């Protein structure tokens, strides 16, 4: 099971290493990780998607995170109403007859072309995981040359 948690941390030297080290030392799996400063430059948000076998492990992860001195709060989105997003940049190679297919796909999955050169295009998409996944599967049939993706971001509503 995947769960999204977000960790508000003191923006101090080594804090990312502490969090990453905790996951590796205790054998927890990180599916994705997104880090950035908040409005207050002294703190950062880390949004972590964890892969766990059961709830007990999720509980342990939250407790262990809370135990780190630099961790201010841990929010578990599992039982909270929230929205989440991922950002994808994909470079595709296409031929003229793919164009219509691409456009239909982009429309459906809230993606757009942000650069086109010759027969390659860079596509940007922001969406929920399922949406992003659908887009990527579609694009893959056409031909993805390069792909980068952010970790998931989440916020309560």
């Amino acid at each position: 099971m995947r769960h999204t948690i977000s960790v508000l941390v003191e923006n101090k030297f080594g804090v990312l290493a502490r969090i990453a080290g905790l996951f590796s030392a205790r054998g927890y799996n990180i599916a994705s990780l997104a880090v950035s400063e908040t409005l207050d430059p002294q703190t950062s948000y880390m949004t972590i998607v964890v892969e766990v076998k059961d709830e007990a492990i999720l509980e342990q992860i939250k407790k262990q995170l809370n135990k780190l001195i630099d961790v201010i709060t841990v929010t578990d989105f599992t039982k909270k109403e929230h929205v989440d997003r991922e950002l994808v940049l994909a470079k595709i190679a296409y031929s003229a007859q793919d164009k219509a297919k691409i456009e239909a796909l982009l429309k459906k999955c809230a993606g757009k072309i942000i650069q086109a050169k010759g027969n390659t295009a860079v596509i940007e998409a922001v969406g929920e995981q399922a949406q992003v996944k659908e887009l990527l599967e579609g694009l893959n049939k056409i031909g993805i040359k390069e792909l980068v993706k952010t970790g998931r971001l989440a916020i309560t509503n």
Partner: protein
Amino acid sequence: MIGAQILIECLKREGVEVIFGYPGGQVLPIFDRLYDADVKFILTRHEQGAAHAADGYARATGKVGVCLATSGPGATNLVTGIANAYMDSIPMVAITGQVKSFLIGNDAFQEADITGITRPITKHNFLVKDIKDLARIVREAFYIASTGRPGPVVIDIPSDIQMQDTFFVWPEKVEMRSYQPTYFGHPGQIKKAVKLIANSKKPLIYAGGGIITSGANAALLELAEKIQAPVTWTLMGIGAFPGTHKLSLGMLGMHGTAYANHAIMGADLIIAVGARFDDRVTGRIDSFAPGAKVIHIDIDPSSISKNIKVDVPIVGDAKNILGEILEQIKIGPDTAEWLKAVDALKKKYPLKYKDGERIKPQYVLEQLYDITKGDVIIATEVGQNQMWACQWLKYDHPRTFISSGGLGTMGFGFPAAMGAKVGCSDKTVIDIAGDGSIQMNIQELGTCVANKINVKVFILNNGYLGMVRQWQELFYKKRYSQVGISSPDFVKLAESYGAVGICVKKKEDVRPAIEKALKTDNTVFIDFHVEPEENVFPMVPAGEAINRMIEGLA
């Protein structure tokens, strides 16, 4: 004030009486300022000795232990000692020198990323990057080390920062929004616990090191007597409850007493206080105490429901919570039947060994107890010697048993005994040692003699890495692989350092040797030549249920 001076000023304000350590290139400014500071410094013979000594000092006194080492090899030599303190939740501050800030990351001479190395084995660590942060960091380090669930904290100070000049500002208060331990138990949970206790017929208290850390031993005693529950404890919990009390069951677990292990399997309520259900205690987890509800009191939320499912978790300080529970319990449950059953277990499965011609290690400990009646501080090494010291000596007071629990570090006992003696100079401190373990930090003899730190080391010399040999005997068809170990002539060795050495080969010499050692105003090594292949029993094989013990004797 320069950084080095600020550091020392902070240590004094934190009430530090003694620092254990070793100098080197990247701590020269600190040692220069120590030259005329009125802080006691104990120069050990190895940084590992300094870390264990600081740890032993902390265990014996309850204060924060402090050690100091240079960068690179000095710092890495502290690592085992830091990990040891971490596993047993011991308050310690380890200060290391670091290469100059602008050289960090350059593979400079004697550079080691000690904050990186110690991240998973410290409660927290700091690299001081700005002289203006130094005083605050030292303050926070002591605060973090000694509050909540205690633990070691490393402060890494580049040598240029030790030299930089700034105004000294002592932070009056420590304020950390991200670190606020919980001290008071949730009232609703406490009510539930009280109800469970009132309705239990077969309650049993399982006490851990948290009792000692929190100073909850008097409250524990009161609770046990009020609800008439037998008490068992972990290795870290030795001394949390009087070993001579009629409700005491001794230690449980892998080498616990058989009656404690049987009793816990029969209990209908386990009151766990400051203990963490370690695998050495529970044995096979799914068959541990099947009929019992569990109340778990611990200051560390992550200890609760980590290994076993808990019915009533209470996060907070043991002393506070036991006090609350005591206040709310009007009359305890009727446990007369249960105590009768437990007494029957005690009679049926007493601790025993087969005495013989040769000196048995258990015999040495019995004699020691008979002479001292427990009025000593006992440190131990690791292995059979340690388990025998748990089984065959009784401890009535907290902070009188000093042993490496979580990490099981051979070589801990001697320097830890030294640290304990520095902290409690009026007490007799004895290290119960193995011939293997003592050789791991034997260089500290030099420290003891030079500083007149008189500790007694009782080597239960079996010529083996006995505990490993025991496993090979029982589980590897007696194929003794690299467990026979030779030793120097401990008498000559002790003498060459200026200490006293006694060799005991005959049973009748055991008692006189102990008496002589206790009367001698010097560090004494007694080399007891004991039965080589004696085993520690009872024993729960790894992964077995804890009532499935191997007994040595019919």
